[in-house]
């Protein structure tokens, strides 16, 4: 026991010593704090009562995309003097129960994603019966109006896919690969189908296990090795772009990597040329606008969109905009 304690104290002392001795003059928490200090400090810009708005999404645990949506929503909540609550579950039944819980709490507004519309129908109806305005974001543009939501804010996945197909044609690509990382995601199928419909070349789908990165890499690698004529790989999520780049290098392929969604690494990749282009659906906007529109509705009965979804994308991002976006991606708003 005594010996064990000695070892522990040596280890702790060593770790502390290393931390103090090895300060980094670049990056890290200090750089982040400096960036934060440059940003506008949040203070409520209105004097409306403090309403409570709950956002319930179909996100799994630890999803970077939804962090950005959240930070947009939180920023708007600060400005509009709103108490913002966020909860999520990737099981439809659990998500519906979370909406029920928000209705029980008698919140003043609900923001919900309709990735599994049929499962959310009853819960959304219950919210409306209780007189709580609902805005849908990100997924469910087809059902939003039918369920009686005020507005839908998001990207039409088919349109986004079509934009990719057109961009690939512009770049003179002939043979593309669409990498789907979530088996069973309807939006992903729509993206690849949309790209296929506008793309003059040939496009094939590749299903990978998105929760297992090494598996994603080896699958793309194998595909590129077996078919050297592939000149473009489209991934459907920012984290997978870097993996596709690795796979391409290991396979010795000439393919260009394109991706849906942005993050810091994608912005860097666009700058150094390892990525061709990215299609952004501006998740920050989805969170921000949803909160802001609920505030407008409560304050002034304003509704945006005229019964049509409000689209936040697709926005094609290339090397030209990458420098600016990298800074925003770093602070987690793009």
């Amino acid at each position, binding site marked *: 026991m005594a010996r064990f304690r000695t070892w522990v104290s040596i280890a702790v002392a060593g770790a502390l010593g290393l931390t103090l001795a090895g300060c980094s003059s670049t990056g890290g928490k200090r750089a982040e704090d400096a960036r934060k200090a440059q940003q506008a400090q949040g203070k409520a810009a209105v004097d409306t009562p403090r309403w409570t708005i709950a956002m319930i999404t179909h996100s799994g645990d630890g999803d970077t995309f939804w962090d950005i949506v959240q930070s947009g929503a939180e920023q708007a909540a600060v400005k509009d003097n709103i108490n913002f609550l966020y909860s999520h579950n990737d099981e439809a039944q659990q998500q519906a129960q979370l909406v029920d819980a928000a209705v029980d709490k008698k919140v003043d507004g609900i923001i919900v994603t309709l990735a599994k519309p049929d*499962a959310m129908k009853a819960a959304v109806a219950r919210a409306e019966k209780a007189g709580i305005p609902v805005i849908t974001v990100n997924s469910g543009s087809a059902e939003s109006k039918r369920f009686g939501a005020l507005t839908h804010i998001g990207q039409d996945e088919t349109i986004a896919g079509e934009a990719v197909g057109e961009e690939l044609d512009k770049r003179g690509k002939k043979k593309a690969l669409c990498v789907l990382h979530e088996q069973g995601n309807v939006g992903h199928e729509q993206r690849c189908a949309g790209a296929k419909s506008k793309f003059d070349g040939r496009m094939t789908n590749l299903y990978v296990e998105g929760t297992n990165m090494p598996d994603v890499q080896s699958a793309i690698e194998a595909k590129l090795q077996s078919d050297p004529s592939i000149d473009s790989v489209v991934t459907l999520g920012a984290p997978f772009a870097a993996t596709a780049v690795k796979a391409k290098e290991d396979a010795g392929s000439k393919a260009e990597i394109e991706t849906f969604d942005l993050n810091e690494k994608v912005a860097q990749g666009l700058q150094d040329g390892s990525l061709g282009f990215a299609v952004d659906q501006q998740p920050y906007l989805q969170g921000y606008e949803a909160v802001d529109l609920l505030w407008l509705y409560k304050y002034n009965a304003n509704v945006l969109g005229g019964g049509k979804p409000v689209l936040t994308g697709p926005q094609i991002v290339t090397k030209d905009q990458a420098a600016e976006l990298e800074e925003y991606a770093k602070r987690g708003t793009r």
Partner: protein
Amino acid sequence: MTTTVPEKQPEPQLDERLLRTSPWKKLMGRPELGSVVGAIAVFIFFSVVADSFLRPASLATVLYAASTLGIMAVPVAMLMIGGEFDLSAGVLVTSSALISSMFSYQMTANTWVGVGVSLLVTLAIGAFNGVMLTRTKLPSFIITLGTFLMLTGMNLGFTKLISGTVSTKSIADMEGFSSAKDVFASTITIGGVDFKITILWWLALILVATWILLRTRAGNWIFAVGGDVDAARAVGVPVNKTKIGLYMGVAFGAWISGQHLLFSYDVVQSGEGVGNELIYIVAAVIGGCLITGGYGSAVGAAIGALIFGMTSKGIVFAEWNSDWFKFFLGAMLLLATLLNAWVRKRAEAIK
């Protein structure tokens, strides 16, 4: 494994198992005692920190959350008392819903036909688990892990093959849907508060399971095979039949849950249910089931499910960040198990 300490017999002509014990001792020896204490503590805690927790509508939501889990936790607890695991229970719920929905849709049959077929197929999968286990003598952990993976793949593969997408087509406009919805997914309004019918299913399952465990020969068999298989076999307990029956019991629970999913949402997502099997086991363990078998109760598992429902929704009512939910769950699991072990020790000492 519980071993009773031999002690001085006050009346030597009486077997010690037939001795009258005081109600207090009886209470101290109940497996679910620890979880009852835990449930009361969790309830009081959330009543204090979340002002909307005590609203009738909120409590109905909590009960609904507990019932959807409890319907599975009760048969899973029985299986664990019988000394086995079922890792395929989570995806079996989804399979059951998918079979029911796709059979009705593809055959253009009355939805009750789909419900019936689903019951048969689900029970067959349960029986398959049990038969494989008793025939191969492999640990149930391995057998059901294999079933779990196969079912996960089949859920996705068959749905895509038959429906062309990853979720089933809606059967809401088909004959028999509304009556099936009444049975599996209706809402009962009592005093202006909407209660889901799953709560009734849950209570019925608790009653049936408790009756089987405490009042029938089969219940004795379950405790016996979980406690010591060889001893049970030696005294003539039909070990294989009991284990196969227990797996079919879990399948029956999965069938009820699956039909509830289908008829509340008319569409089933094929990729769901993964990971829930562990939650069922957590509920059973919080409720006082021993992981080694031979000890536990259906009521305990139901209370474990109630604690889970209160925590998962209580965090929402308390407006906490839901990122921490799994942390609380893990901490609660450890605390509950320690509490259960302590209560059991005390009970042993009193005897």
